[in-house]
C-alpha cells in the first residue's frame, strides 16, 4: 500500500478536472454575488438613518466573524430541498459580501470630500451622486482587493464538498475512498489549486502595483 500509484493519478485526473469546472463555476458566481451584495451593503451602511446603518453593521460583523463551514452546513440543513450548488454559491456570496463591503467602504471613504460637496453644489440627486460621481471613482480603487477575495474564495470552495456539491474535492474524496488512493488524489488536487491560484495572485499583485497601492 505504500508508495505513490501513478495509475491512480492518470485515472483520477479527468474526474478531478471535471470537478474543477464546478469549482470554477462556484467561484465565479460566488464572486459576482459578493461583489454586488457587498456594494449594496456598503452603500446601505452610509444611509442617513441609524435604523439602517446599525443593523447592517451588526449583521456584517456577525457574518464575517462566524465560520463559513457552519453557515454552509446550517443553510444546507435548513433548505434541504434546494440544489446544494445554489446554496453553496449563495452562502459563499453572502459570506464574502461581508468582507467586500468593507473594501467598498474604504474605497468610498477614499473619494475626496470635495467630490461630495461639488455634487451638492450642482444639486445632483443622491442617486446621480452615487452613480455618476462616487462609485466610478471608488470601484476602480477597490478592484485589486476584490480580486484577492476572489482568490481566497477559490481556495475555500472545497468546503462545498461537505454539502455534497460535486466540485473537485468532492470527486477527490470519492475516488480516494473507492480506490483507497487518498495520497494521489489529494496531492493532485492541491497541485491543481496551486497551478490555478499562483499565476492569478501574481497577476493581482501586478495590477495592485500599477494602480499604485
Amino acid at each position, binding site marked *: 500500500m505504500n508508495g505513490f500509484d501513478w495509475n491512480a493519478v492518470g485515472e483520477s485526473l479527468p474526474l478531478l478536472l471535471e470537478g474543477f469546472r464546478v469549482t470554477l463555476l462556484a467561484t465565479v458566481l460566488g464572486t459576482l454575488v459578493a461583489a454586488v451584495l457587498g456594494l449594496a451593503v456598503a452603500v446601505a451602511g452610509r444611509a442617513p438613518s441609524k435604523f439602517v446603518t446599525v443593523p447592517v453593521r451588526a449583521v456584517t460583523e456577525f457574518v464575517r*466573524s462566524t465560520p463559513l*463551514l457552519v*453557515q454552509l452546513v446550517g443553510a444546507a440543513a435548513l433548505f434541504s430541498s434546494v440544489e446544494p450548488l445554489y446554496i453553496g454559491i449563495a452562502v459563499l456570496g453572502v459570506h464574502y459580501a461581508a468582507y467586500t463591503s468593507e*473594501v467598498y467602504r474604504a474605497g468610498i471613504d477614499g473619494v475626496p470630500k470635495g467630490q461630495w460637496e461639488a455634487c451638492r453644489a450642482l444639486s445632483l440627486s443622491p442617486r446621480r451622486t452615487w452613480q455618476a460621481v462616487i462609485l466610478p471613482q471608488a470601484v476602480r480603487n477597490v478592484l485589486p482587493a476584490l480580486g484577492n477575495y476572489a482568490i481566497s474564495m477559490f481556495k475555500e470552495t472545497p468546503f462545498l464538498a461537505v454539502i455534497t456539491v460535486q466540485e473537485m474535492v468532492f470527486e477527490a474524496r470519492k475516488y480516494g475512498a473507492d480506490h483507497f488512493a487518498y495520497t494521489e488524489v489529494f*496531492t493532485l488536487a492541491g497541485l491543481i*489549486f496551486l497551478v490555478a491560484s499562483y499565476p492569478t495572485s501574481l497577476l493581482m499583485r501586478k495590477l495592485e502595483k500599477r494602480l499604485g497601492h
Partner: protein
Amino acid sequence: MSDFFSLLVEEFPQVRSGLWVTLEATVLGALLAGALAFALGLMAGSKLLLARGFSRVVVEFFRGTSLYIQLFWLYYAMPLLTGYELTPLICGVVAFGLNYGAYGAEVVRGAINSVPRGQYEAAIALNLSPARRLWKVILPQAWVQMIPSFTNLLIQLLKCTPLLWLISAADLMTVIQQLRDRTGETLTAYLTLLAAYFVLAYALTLLMNLLERGAKRRLGLDTGAKGLLKSRSTTATAVGGTR
C-alpha cells in the same frame, strides 16, 4: 426551542470538552503559525538568496494549496505514504499553523519593510549589532503594524476550526451537531453554534486590541481605552493584505 437548550445544559460536560478542543486547536495553531510567520518573514528579508528563496517557496506553496486540502492530505494521505499517523487534533494544529504561518509571513515581511529606512540607518550609525538592531529598533515598530493583520488571521484561523469535525476530532461543531441530531432543532442548533463562534471571535479581538495598545504604549503612542472595544482595526488591510 427549549428541548435543545435543556439538552445543552444536560450535556454540558460534553459541550465544554468540545469547546476546549476548538480553543486548543485555535491557540496551538496560532502559536505555530506565529512562530512560522516570524521565521519565514525574517528569512524573506535576509541577504542570503537561499533563505529568501526557501521562504518564498514555502509561503507560496502553503498559501496556494487550499487549507482544506492540506488538512485532508495530513489526515488521509500522510499515513498511507509514511505509515505515520497524527491524531486529528494535531493534524488540525499542524495544518492551521502551516497555512496561517504562510499568510502571517507576508504580514511580518510587509511590516518590517514599512519601518522607515532612517531607523535602520540610525541603528547602524549607533553601532548596534544586527541582533540588537532588530530586537530594539525594528521589531518594536513593526510589531505595532503587524497586530491588526494578525488579529484578522487569528479570527480566520478560529473560523477554520470547524474543519476538525470532518476529520472526526470532537470539536464544538461536532458536539452541537450531535445535540441537533438528537433534538431535530436545526435552526436553534446552528444559530447557537454561530453565536458561540461570534463570542469567541470577539473575545480574541479584544485580547488582540489589548496587545496592540500595550505595543503602542511602548512606542509612546497612547490611544486611550476607547479603541479597545472596536471590533476591527481600520488599518487592518494596510500591511500584507488580509488573506
